[in-house]
């Protein structure tokens, strides 16, 4: 199938968006050129299409994705893949603040490092980061898995709900109510099954699986100090 080429440059973003949507509905493969780190590109893409961005994109790229394959050559700004329910997003470089915020399903694969609050309030799906995840990653994640292969910044997995944060490498420090557990063989196999299709499976890894200590699930006055830490 032939590839549709769409150039962003300084054109009105609405016009670019309509072109991307029209090509995506036809189910083809789309190449986006000269994105200039502009915001809101490739939002609400349907299943069955594949969109590749040359260079870097701005905020909210690939948000509300319902099944498209999206590939960003270099960096993504804030909120990449926000609230996506299905599909696959690959970021070749650095992902800015809140990548995968409130996502429900699908996979985000970041080849570089991430900014703060990776997967904030995510409800499901997977975020795989080859580099380091930033400050307060997994903040209030309700579900899903964040898997970091290059360590984590400060306040890791702060105020986690039912999500899981998996880290190999150094963790600067843990967030409020974050508890490190030893994963079972079955749990490791589950994570390896997520990493395998990305070519990242490595059975020699020393994992730390971080979950909620559940102290913040119900308010207890004796825990008031922990609440004040948030």
């Amino acid at each position, binding site marked *: 199938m032939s590839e549709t080429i769409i150039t962003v440059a300084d054109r009105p973003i609405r016009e670019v968006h309509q072109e991307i949507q029209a090509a995506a509905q036809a189910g083809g493969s789309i190449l986006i050129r000269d994105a200039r780190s502009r915001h809101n590109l490739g939002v609400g893409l349907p299943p069955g299409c594949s969109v590749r961005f040359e260079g870097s994109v*701005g905020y909210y790229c690939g948000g509300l994705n319902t099944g498209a394959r999206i590939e960003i050559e270099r960096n993504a700004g804030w909120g990449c893949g926000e609230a996506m329910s299905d599909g696959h997003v690959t970021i070749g470089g650095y992902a800015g603040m809140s990548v995968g915020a409130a996502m429900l399903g699908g996979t985000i694969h970041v080849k570089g490092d991430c*900014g703060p609050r990776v997967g904030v309030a995510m409800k499901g799906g997977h975020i795989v980061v080859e580099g380091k995840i930033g400050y307060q990653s997994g903040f209030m994640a309700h579900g899903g898995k964040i898997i970091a292969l290059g360590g984590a910044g400060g306040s890791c997995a702060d105020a986690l709900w039912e999500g899981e944060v998996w880290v190999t490498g150094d963790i600067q420090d843990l967030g409020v109510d974050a508890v490190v557990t030893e994963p079972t063989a079955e749990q490791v196999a589950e994570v390896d099954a997520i990493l395998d299709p990305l070519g990242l499976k490595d059975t020699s890894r020393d994992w730390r699986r971080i979950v909620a200590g559940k102290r913040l699930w119900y308010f207890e006055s004796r825990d008031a100090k922990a609440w004040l830490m948030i």
Partner: protein
Amino acid sequence: MCGIAGRILNAPGKVGADLVELMDAQEHRGADSTGFAVWGVPRDDGYIVRAIGFDRTRMAADLEDFRAILKQHGSDFIEDPTWDNDRSKHYSVRMIIRDPADMAEWVRAADEICTRLEMQSVGRSLEIIKDTGGAYAVADKHGVRDMIGTHGLGHARLATESDVRPNASHPFWARPFPDVAIVHNGQITDYYTWRNRLTRQGYRFLTYNDSELIAVWVSDRMKQGLSMEQALTRSIDEIDGVFTFMIGTPETIGFAKDRFAMKPLVVVNELGRIAAATEEQAVRRVVLDEDCDIINYDGPCQFGTWGVGNRRAAA
């Protein structure tokens, strides 16, 4: 929300034009007002004063009274003042004055008429231009694109905590420290605590904008002998809130970010030519190499400074 920007050139050049582009790219972050601080080629003596008057029909009387205060402090106009020819009720005026005998005392005296004519900046090289409206509108009205200098700051304001008025826009001058200005994206939550402390020390605030406070806070620390880097580090520990701010002096632009890592800063350093902004799409308007390395200062408690090189020679 607000958007901020900083620019450093290797030698005096069209820094005003670059700042206008940096701010136009971020106008969606705050279209209430736009402002620019430009450090031009420094004067050996005398100061450039930028001021906003609130009633154009009274401009002659305002300037006469301003001049009378100057004379009481051993100063006077070196050149005739110039002003914008807009039809707006407020007016912006640029004056060149002789060195007053005592800067702080003169500023205090000149501020006695600040309800009519309010000084926005005083410096050997600093000029602050700010007004309501977007980047291109403010640039057209005040000739910002023609401003030559080595470095500058820009700001697009979305007013959340205080008025939308030309003089409540950013950048803020660190009254009464000549040549120091700030732009800020965020909110200071212990604003009144610090304002009261600094007021007791003798500082005067003309707005209720928290950014005006940071400018004076950092300058006061530097007056006490701290380096800019030391003052910026202290600000992260001692000021509460979510913030990213940039402060400029004749030699340096510095930045600091709060401990919650809420407000972004994107920087490109092309061999000393610095472009810094809230959003990456803004720096792309002025950098030469589209494959340049982008530095994202996304983490908490970050600070840094960039030096300004050759301030006088042409490139």
